[in-house]
């Protein structure tokens, strides 16, 4: 065999492998295409995710320049897009300018660390930086320590919580913002329980940590409550299983494939899927199976318009609206009044879908029946006026140990740092 002969055939194989190997090449074709309005094989984007004119100019010297570090693609119809759109909202509200880098994770960008991105953004004039993933913890702690004069926000983190378990008092430039998504997940669980015909709900979970246990538990509590109170069924008969894929989104060869997990749930009898991951595979796959005639539904996560991916199978979506809180932080940096706070923000109960005031919202989907919608509204009203507090004992952990005694209400710390799934849920509370 000559070197040349082999080279030619190898290169073909290699280019495929490089693509599959999870380097920045993974999304090459789709992403190059995304500068045109449609992405190959996907629905047209309904949002302004494609690069537009607003952020191309740099260094004009006007207003605030801020950096936005995203863990996934900025058009993922989920977690990262919700942050990206909050950045666009900041640009619009504050006349600020966003520097954005998406897909900052070890699989997509092996040679780029969060610490490096922070350096880059600061050298480009960023006066405020958002690191928007749990996964960026080590990087943003280092980045904040490297640039103590630049205010930063680690979204979903707890490093600025004085009562928290991971408080970093020395990082006086690093704040945290998170939403009380428990409420959104309770609504999701409720909508699932109101709809299920098989009495079996599947939760497509990301990785296992305090946050994801907290949110899976919230979904379960909402499901139990609505199954019992609006449908008159025995909540103990409700099946609620969690399957964790291993990361916030699919990484081929590393995580479980969320599409497969969705299929397995449906094949196993679940007819409503609740997604806890950053992307919309659970809804997309469920939508395909619904189109093929099955009675199945899904509830995506994170992003206001996520239902658009498969509207006919979508019961609704609990979403984050980061814009208002990010604008507030941006304004504080402009005013010179930034403080490194830990903010855990709830919905604006007057109107949870108000894009200017509410951190957490819930868009009802086209597949939700009118009857279920009425019950869900009633449930939401109960959460709003405090007449329904599902974090009330008696509640046990999955292993039977007590979480809350009879009548005891959970403290914020007990809710944030949830050690286990709850009794009655199937699935792993931690790694086996």
């Amino acid at each position, binding site marked *: 065999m000559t070197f040349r002969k082999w080279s030619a055939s190898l290169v073909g194989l290699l280019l495929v*492998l*490089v693509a599959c190997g999870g380097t920045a090449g993974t999304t090459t074709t789709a992403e190059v295409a995304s500068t045109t309005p449609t992405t190959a094989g996907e629905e047209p984007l309904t949002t302004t995710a494609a690069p537009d004119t607003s952020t191309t100019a740099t260094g004009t010297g006007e207003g605030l320049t801020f950096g936005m570090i995203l863990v996934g693609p900025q058009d993922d119809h989920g977690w990262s897009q919700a942050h990206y759109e909050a950045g666009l909202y900041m640009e619009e509200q504050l006349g600020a300018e966003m520097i954005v880098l998406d897909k900052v994770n070890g699989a997509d960008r092996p040679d780029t660390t969060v610490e490096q991105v922070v350096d*880059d953004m600061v*050298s480009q004039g960023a006066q405020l930086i958002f690191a928007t993933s749990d996964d960026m913890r080590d990087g943003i702690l280092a980045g904040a320590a490297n640039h103590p004069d630049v205010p930063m926000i680690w979204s979903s983190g707890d490093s600025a919580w004085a009562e928290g378990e991971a408080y970093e008092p020395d990082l006086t430039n690093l704040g945290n913002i998170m939403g009380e998504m428990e409420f959104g997940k309770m609504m999701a669980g409720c909508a699932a329980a109101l709809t299920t015909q098989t009495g079996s709900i599947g939760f497509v979970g990301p990785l296992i940590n305090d946050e994801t246990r907290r949110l899976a538990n919230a979904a379960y509590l909402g499901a139990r409550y609505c199954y019992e109170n609006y449908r008159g069924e025995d909540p103990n008969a409700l099946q609620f299983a969690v399957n964790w894929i291993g990361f916030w989104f699919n990484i081929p060869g590393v995580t479980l494939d969320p599409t497969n997990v969705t299929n397995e749930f449906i094949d196993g009898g679940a007819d409503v899927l609740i997604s806890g991951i950053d992307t919309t595979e659970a809804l997309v796959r469920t939508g395909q199976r619904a189109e093929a005639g099955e009675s199945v539904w899904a509830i995506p996560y994170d992003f206001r318009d996520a239902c658009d991916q498969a509207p006919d199978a979508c019961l609704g979506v609990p979403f984050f609206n980061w814009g208002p809180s990010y604008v507030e932080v941006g304004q504080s940096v402009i005013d010179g009044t930034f403080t490194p706070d830990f903010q855990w923000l709830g919905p604006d109960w007057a109107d949870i879908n108000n894009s200017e005031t509410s951190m957490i919202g819930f868009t009802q989907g086209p597949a939700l029946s009118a009857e279920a919608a009425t019950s869900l509204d009633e449930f939401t009203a109960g959460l709003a006026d405090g007449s329904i507090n599902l974090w009330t004992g008696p509640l046990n952990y999955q292993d039977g140990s007590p979480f809350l005694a009879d009548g005891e209400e959970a403290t914020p710390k007990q809710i944030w740092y949830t050690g286990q799934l709850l009794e009655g849920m199937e699935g792993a509370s*931690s790694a086996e």
Partner: protein
Amino acid sequence: MTRRIASFLVPLAVALGITALLLIVAGAPPLEALGLIGEGAFGDTTRIADTLTAWIPLGMAAAGLVVTFRAGLWNIGVEGQIIAGAIAASAVSRSAPGGPAIVIPLLLLAGVLGGALWGWLAGILRVKGRVNEIFGGIGLGFVAQSFATYLVIGPWKRAGVASTSGTEPFREETWLPTIGDTRLSWVGLTLLVIALVGVGFMLGRTRFGLRLRAVGSNPASARLLGVPANATLYWAFLWGGGLAGLAGGLLVAGLQHKLVPAIAGGRGFLAVLVVLLARNRVAFVAPIALFFAAISVGSSQLQLRLDLDSSLGAVIQGVLVLAAVLYAGWQARRVLVKRLAASAEATV
């Protein structure tokens, strides 16, 4: 020599031309975009240091590949060998006591051994099992990848967490010492230079290098001439795997400071492309690996400054290799046609 330089420059020009076209289609000024990649890779001390940091593991893995390629072995398993080295280095980082002077040499040695073990396994499959090293290597790569994922999400998980995002960072004594304020380590840089020079010397000036070449060009006649072919193959796998494993150890101790499942991050496959582009010459491996590292580090500027998708960097790398291989094929065909024409003339 001019032909050899042309075989490097012509594809480069073609690749840059295609990339420029792509950029124009994407609505970006091509010169500014390429300039930004360059600036992102070499614009200031920090960026040069980051580019060199990316160069170290890529160059190291490529240096090891030159050895196996010389023996005629298509060691695609290099990605898995990097992971195996990273796992072994992580095991030492987690458990070995002592200060940096003890623990860093230990963990790097563990990396070499881990990678060499993985290379040796591919060798056994090849020699004893008659499994082509391409398939053996890919299979072993999956095994290493799965094992790393298992460790990160299982036995080595963070307390209360099961995530593939990585282990808890290892203690600071296991981190490679850096130069000034940068993230670049002189340990890694020195080791890379030693590896490149060492491989070059070994291939060009030693009996082992000669054997590799003999086995690589014609194993049957090498055996007839008394070259221990199987032993030579094993040694080639040990060298290739060992250097890839060292790259894995350097990634753990010099960049991530923890084990992540995607620790190799496609660098193994990229290293194969580097070596193909270098036509298996160690002298060309160094600059080409540096060039690839620069694109990899600098291309994030496309998004930061121009709002373009920075995957374009990977497109440039891919187009470059395709152009190089096509050019090499075209060259060889031209030579062949000339020869045929000459022999036809001679017979007339």
